[in-house]
């Protein structure tokens, strides 16, 4: 079995967001980059399959030189090989999907694991787009995955609870929190990763479907009001305000 894991480098959640001078991108000055947390579930699942039934795990990221950190970490955690597709990995999800599809197309992957969304961009788009471009099955927001012989069975989160999706491999599966508990890299893994090289390829040309034309900070919320008095007085004042001022009820 051959598994591809797509990992995206994203700004850490604590990053203070500053808009760059162009008014449409993120000022990268103080940004600390991390692997998107959902992609960690995707990678962990691949490593568990490898440990269970045996598999070759390829970690892939689209980005610049800094995305190598994501791949080094993936190698330390147990990926067999790593590929950096050099290109704009922070751009339009459709374009990134085309780059990954062009790479994966004739490599015989049985399973492609992604995060269900990239932290920050939150499009939740790449997985389904990649599945479509490769002409394979998809299952998104997955909290449980079982593989059969050329088939998969996955539990996916939906509004009313969850649902069981069954389909044929190859498939694109996007991971949700709950799928597993990602491990930490061991010293042995980190040492072993140092000996491995990251394959660097130019990403295939891609057509963007959308672009960010402006990035703005959210409007300040108006200052709030603290309610005074004992609990009963505060409670009554709040319900009254919600009813009469806010007209929530």
């Amino acid at each position: 079995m051959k598994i591809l894991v797509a990992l995206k480098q994203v700004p850490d959640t604590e990053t203070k967001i500053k808009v760059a001078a162009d008014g449409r991108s993120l000022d990268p000055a103080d940004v600390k980059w991390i692997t998107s947390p959902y992609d960690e579930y995707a990678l962990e699942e691949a490593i568990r399959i490898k440990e269970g039934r045996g598999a070759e795990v390829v970690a892939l990221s689209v980005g610049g030189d800094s995305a190598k950190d994501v791949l080094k970490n993936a190698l330390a955690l147990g990926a067999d090989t790593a590929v950096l597709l050099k290109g704009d990995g922070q751009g339009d999800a459709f374009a990134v999907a085309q780059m990954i599809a062009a790479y994966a197309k004739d490599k015989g992957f049985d399973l492609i694991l992604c995060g269900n969304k990239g932290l920050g961009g939150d499009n939740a788009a790449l997985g389904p787009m990649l599945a479509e471009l490769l002409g394979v099955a998809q299952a998104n927001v997955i909290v449980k995955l079982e593989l059969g012989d050329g088939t998969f069975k996955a539990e996916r989160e939906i509004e009313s609870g969850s649902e069981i999706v069954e389909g044929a491999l190859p498939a694109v599966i996007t991971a949700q929190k709950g799928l597993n508990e990602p491990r930490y890299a061991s010293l042995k893994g980190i040492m072993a990763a140092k000996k491995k090289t990251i394959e660097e390829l130019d990403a295939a040309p891609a057509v963007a479907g959308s672009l960010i034309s402006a990035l703005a900070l959210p409007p300040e919320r108006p200052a709030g009001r603290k309610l005074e008095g004992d609990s009963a007085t505060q409670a009554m004042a709040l319900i009254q305000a919600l009813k009469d001022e806010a007209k929530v009820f």
Partner: protein
Amino acid sequence: MILVFCELKDGQIRKPSAEALSEGRRLADVVGKPLGALFAGASCAGSAEAAKYGADVILTAESPTLTSYSSDAYATVLADAVKAKGVTVLLAAATAIGKDVAPRAAARLGAGYASDVTALSMVDGKLQAIRPVYAGKAFATTSFASSVQVATTRPNVFPAVEKAGAGATEALTAPAGDFKSVVKEILAKASGKVDLSEANVIVSGGRGMKDGANFKILEDLADAIGGVVGASRAAVDAGWGLPHSMQVGQTGKVVSPTLYIACGISGAIQHIAGMSGSKFIVAINKDPEAPIFKLANYGIVGDLFEVVPELTKAAKALGIGSN
């Protein structure tokens, strides 16, 4: 044509779909184009209701092959309808199904896609979307390069507006079968209450609740004011037996209720990511310096174990939720 993919539940249009349809009507009026509503399933009974929200044309792909949801089958329905009808803007609600099918259909159409948007407009005849990014710390304006533009609308953000449309009906050919993946079974969660992402009122508890059993007082308040209960990640991860489906935040649900009451929640950026789109925010916290107060329209500094039961009492006294 502007086309909106709609979902039915128990023979009625789901609220997030009605919202998307209403927004579709508004955009169609701006550019002077007709509005289509698209339904798929074993039965599309109830689809006529789309006329109430302004649909000029109601398209139905009705077939036993569509009894269970299938990503690729539904993507085919959407993409084929777009091609057949010369659709330029395709909308769906950002529901579990909408977010699953819309990007796949977009890829088939070579179209750009904006996910979970909070505002839409037409600029030079093309769709433009605004969506929160970076945990709501910024808003990105998405413009499209493609001739077809696809977007999913965040539930509870766009108003559902009744405006009569012609509602002419037309049946479409449904895909024949042999799909790549199919839903086999739906495992319902215990409560049967509305999902957090669609709730109008949410009462959430954090680490300050101290124990899962204490969520009873939040349930009581939620019942009194017609809301549902959510939680912070600290509460979900504490081993109190709260399911992840209750979690609000960056790695949980993104919610936009009219009212969000945060009880014993400090207001970490990752929590705020999930609820900053709420219209009114109430914070109940014993720490006057808790960051959640910066966001709150109304704040109560106090012990939630005293305040929450008083709120339930006050709501009942004022007859809230009884109408």
